[in-house]
């Protein structure tokens, strides 16, 4: 039985303008760095310039004497500073180096904190940080993941190896499919074998608000304000690693300026600020500079993907084997190896592959640590398979959409259990693709492509296809348990019915730009039949919302939204009994619709607001009634949700200069029920551009000594308004069946789908020249080099089976030599 007899969707689906905008538009926002407390000290970090070194001594005497300085602290001064934890060891054997917030005697990457200066102003702290004299004994560093596998140079000598963990999913062993080696052998003999190596370059999340932390140790309870996606997880880990009682720690994420996974971390800076605040007994603030963000905030991606796709001659895929080498950087971050492993269920994507094997080796290197960045594991998987499907189409000689249609799960086949063992509940790939084709003008653009090709135009046109799915709603607690993850994946909500008729909604999902206040209000307004304007959403504070698992992995709506529905239903059930008493009727005879309880067959009724007020007064309740309608709920899903979509991209490529220009981009996403189309559109726009940026512009590059050379916004090229075009976005809807709202999640979709769409388009523009890959990012220089070397390649546009992973060669792409970005 549902609590609501009839709930017209008045708010759900409406393009409500956002509640959170007013303060953001007028500069009345509560960013962490805006917080000032009496007597507050400002911190500056002294960071290692070396990628790998032993700290032989730290002389703080001069810095301590500098004007305004209250104290200078090294790692050994900060007893009980806590630990930066890995919450997802892939298995018992995983090698996990200890990660101290402030290093004591060893640094494993540039940017690691070796001392903290506390001063009365931020400028004084920074000046004094220059005066801390650290003696390092520089050690050899290993920067290349493949080189790290040899263990010739060790990132953490005490571990004895750089290999952190190996993780496998094999369909034959799991009983979810056939034997991949057999499929490969058959394809080699009588079918098609596509063998490729793809590089997922390292990226920087680059949220716009630099991270900032304020800790107030005054009083019994320690309060930390911090720019984080995960206040609840942070509170738990502070307690678990410092020994401070969990009840004495309050973490507040005030307004947070973007995250994209980059603020899904418990950071050395947060723990160092906490330690110095406790040590000095004074409120402390640390706000990083952008240059510090670039080197010290975890990076994303960074994988080498070795892929073998087996198919019959007509293009029916018979097996896929994936070998990942995932560079973790210097430490195993909070999700760490879990990020590439999330790809395990996604390489098979929307297709019916009979055999599959996924292998992932994680490895430590002397570079910035790596963790979740928008999509986390799923973009990498989607990139690989969508690139491969285009290669297969080229091999068979058919349109890339044809090869997908041949292999995808048809809409009649849902629910469908994939070769990786995941059950997809719903979807309609045909519908999304048909709509995308239509919006794109697919046939016209193909005709133009032919014309340009035949006319020998110097500017060629390419069309890129990306049909993707993702697993969202991270994550069912039982599955996380089976994967050895340290926490659950539920979400919590509370609804408080105030005496004035207003409603307070508390959610454990903590936003950083997603518009939760608006979307949650829409959901609760419909469910309770109260006005959108009468709802206030409280979030991001562990004292106000005591339970929560925060925001990442497109989980807020799918998991947190469902918790809201459950809490609202409990409010209604409590109210039903109070209303029955007030209306002198039996609870069974009451109908609840649009916020009103009515007695069947009479004109008697009462609004839920009046019931709430009556419950608050408590003057006239039935015997034994509790004078409150407030309710809590925690929702844990049984399985993931599976948004999907078809993205089409047209790129113009100037074969003389290597310059690329986006002509058109169409995205049709099926994200299930849409709560607010305006917010959905915004998520898609931003996500798509982040994925395009990986394809065309962004890469975190280190030099030979392990210094990040793209260490500021001067060198790390984020796209600007002038670099991009308007995307065409639309939605098809097949509701999810795994939550009552039918939602699937949208936060990561654009970023997952767009990278292969763009690269497929550029490769498609040049395929007739014999080019079948260019390494990301596709800078004009790389494209130009690819064109140049293709022209001199006597083999021409050969589509013969590729040589099997020639030593040192990347992607069989002669342009992408070891000197050209392949070093990391």
């Amino acid at each position: 039985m549902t609590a609501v007899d009839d709930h017209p969707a008045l708010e759900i689906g409406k393009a409500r303008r956002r509640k959170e905008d007013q303060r953001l538009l007028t500069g009345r926002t509560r960013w962490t760095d805006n917080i000032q407390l009496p007597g507050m000290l400002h911190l500056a970090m002294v960071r290692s310039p070396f990628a790998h070194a032993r700290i032989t001594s730290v002389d703080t005497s001069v810095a301590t004497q500098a004007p305004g300085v209250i104290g200078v602290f090294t790692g050994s001064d900060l007893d009980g500073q806590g630990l930066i934890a890995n919450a997802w060891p892939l298995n018992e054997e995983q090698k996990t180096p200890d990660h101290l917030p402030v290093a004591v005697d060893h640094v494993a990457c540039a940017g690691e904190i070796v001392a903290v200066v506390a001063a009365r102003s931020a400028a004084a702290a920074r000046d004094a940080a220059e005066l801390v004299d650290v003696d390092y004994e520089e050690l050899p560093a290993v920067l290349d993941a493949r080189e790290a596998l040899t263990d010739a140079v060790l990132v953490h000598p005490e571990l004895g190896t750089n290999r952190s963990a190996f993780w496998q999913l094999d369909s034959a062993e799991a009983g979810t499919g056939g034997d991949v080696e057999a499929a490969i052998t058959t394809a080699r003999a009588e079918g098609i074998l596509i063998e490729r190596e793809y590089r997922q370059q390292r990226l920087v999340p680059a949220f716009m608000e630099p991270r900032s932390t304020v800790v107030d140790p005054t009083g019994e309870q320690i309060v930390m304000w911090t720019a984080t996606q995960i206040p609840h997880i942070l509170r738990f880990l502070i307690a678990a690693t410092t020994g401070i009682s969990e009840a004495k720690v309050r973490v507040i994420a005030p307004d947070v300026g973007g995250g994209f996974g980059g603020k899904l971390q418990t950071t050395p800076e947060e723990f160092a600020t906490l330690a110095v605040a406790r040590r000095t007994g004074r409120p402390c603030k640390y706000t990083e500079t952008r240059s510090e963000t670039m080197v010290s905030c975890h990076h994303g991606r960074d994988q080498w993907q070795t892929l073998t796709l087996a198919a019959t001659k007509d293009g029916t895929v018979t097996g896929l084997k994936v070998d990942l080498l995932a560079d973790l950087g210097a430490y195993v971050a909070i999700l760490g190896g879990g990020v590439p492993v999330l790809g395990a269920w996604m390489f098979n994507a929307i297709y019916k592959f009979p055999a599959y094997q996924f292998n992932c080796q994680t490895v430590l290197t002397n570079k910035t640590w790596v963790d979740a960045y928008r999509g986390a594991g799923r973009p990498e998987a989607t990139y690989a398979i969508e690139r491969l499907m285009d290669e297969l189409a080229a091999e068979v000689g058919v349109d890339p959409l044809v090869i997908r249609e041949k292999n995808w799960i048809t809409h009649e086949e849902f629910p469908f259990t994939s070769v990786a063992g995941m059950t997809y509940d719903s979807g309609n790939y045909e519908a999304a693709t048909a709509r995308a084709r239509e919006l794109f003008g697919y046939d016209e653009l193909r005709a133009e492509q032919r014309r340009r090709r035949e006319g020998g135009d110097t500017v060629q046109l390419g069309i890129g296809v990306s049909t993707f799915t993702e697993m969202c709603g991270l994550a069912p607690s039982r599955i996380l348990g089976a994967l050895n993850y340290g926490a659950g994946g539920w979400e919590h909500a509370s609804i408080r019915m105030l005496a004035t008729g207003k409603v307070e909604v508390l959610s454990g999902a903590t936003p950083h730009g997603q518009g939760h206040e608006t979307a949650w209000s829409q959901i609760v307004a419909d469910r309770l039949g109260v006005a959108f304007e009468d709802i206030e959403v409280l979030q991001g504070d562990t004292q106000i919302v005591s339970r929560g698992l925060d925001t990442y992995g497109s989980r807020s709506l799918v998991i947190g939204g469902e918790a809201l529905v459950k809490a609202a239903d409990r409010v209604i059930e409590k109210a039903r009994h109070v209303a029955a008493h007030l209306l002198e009727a039996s609870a069974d005879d009451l109908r609840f619709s649009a916020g009103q309880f009515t007695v069947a067959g009479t004109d008697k009724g009462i609004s839920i607001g009046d019931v709430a007020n009556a419950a608050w007064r408590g003057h006239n309740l039935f015997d034994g009634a509790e004078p409150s309608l407030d309710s809590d709920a925690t929702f844990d899903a049984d399985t993931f949700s599976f948004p999907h979509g078809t993205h089409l991209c047209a790129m113009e490529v100037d074969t003389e200069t290597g310059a690329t220009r986006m002509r058109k981009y169409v995205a049709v996403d099926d994200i299930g029920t849409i709560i607010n189309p305006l917010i959905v559109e915004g998520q898609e726009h931003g996500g798509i551009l982040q994925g395009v940026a990986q394809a065309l512009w962004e890469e975190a590059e280190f030099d030979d000594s392990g210094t990040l050379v793209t260490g500021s916004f001067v060198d790390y090229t984020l796209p600007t308004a002038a670099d991009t075009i308007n995307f065409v976005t639309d939605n098809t809807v097949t509701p999810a069946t795994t939550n009552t709202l039918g939602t699937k999640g949208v936060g990561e979709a654009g970023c997952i789908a767009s990278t292969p769409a763009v690269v497929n388009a550029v490769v498609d523009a040049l395929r007739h020249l014999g080019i079948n890959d260019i390494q990301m990012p596709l800078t004009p220089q790389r494209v130009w080099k690819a064109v140049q070397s293709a022209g001199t390649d006597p083999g021409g546009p050969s589509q013969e089976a590729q040589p099997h992973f020639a030593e040192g060669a990347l992607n069989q792409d002669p342009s992408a030599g070891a000197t050209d970005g392949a070093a990391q």
Partner: protein
Amino acid sequence: MTRVHVTVDGVQYSDDIEPRMLLVHYLREVVGKVGTVIGCDTSNCGACTVHLDGASVKSCNVLAVQADGHEVTTIEGIAVDGELHPMQQAFHEHHALQCGYCTPGMIMQALDLVRENPTPSEEEIRLGLEGNLCRCTGYQNIVKAVAACASTMETSTTARPERSAAR
């Protein structure tokens, strides 16, 4: 220490400051105008954009002493009596902000853009905002909002764009 006299959002301030202090630090730390934010340390992001005598500047790229005797308008000075400026309203209407961190700078830059060119094309808007980074929106709705605002301000008889510069 140097004494500066600066008018910020219509109010006069006199302060003794270190000569090396950047305008953005003066606004945030001394005057308390924390609506103006800092996104980088290389003058690339534009998050700190304010108006100096009516024209946009990146306030991390100006010393506070250079503002001595001048008028500064920040994001906090453009709404009147709680009523949003048309550019703020357009950003709200077109969902041109997500986390909102870039928004103050983006709006101040957009106002400068339409002041100089009241009828900008999409291309001109994109170029005009090139110095302001946004990681959330993909810029699409920002461009839409600026275009919509420019056209309403053009046709509006109460022409408010100059007002922000004059205050």
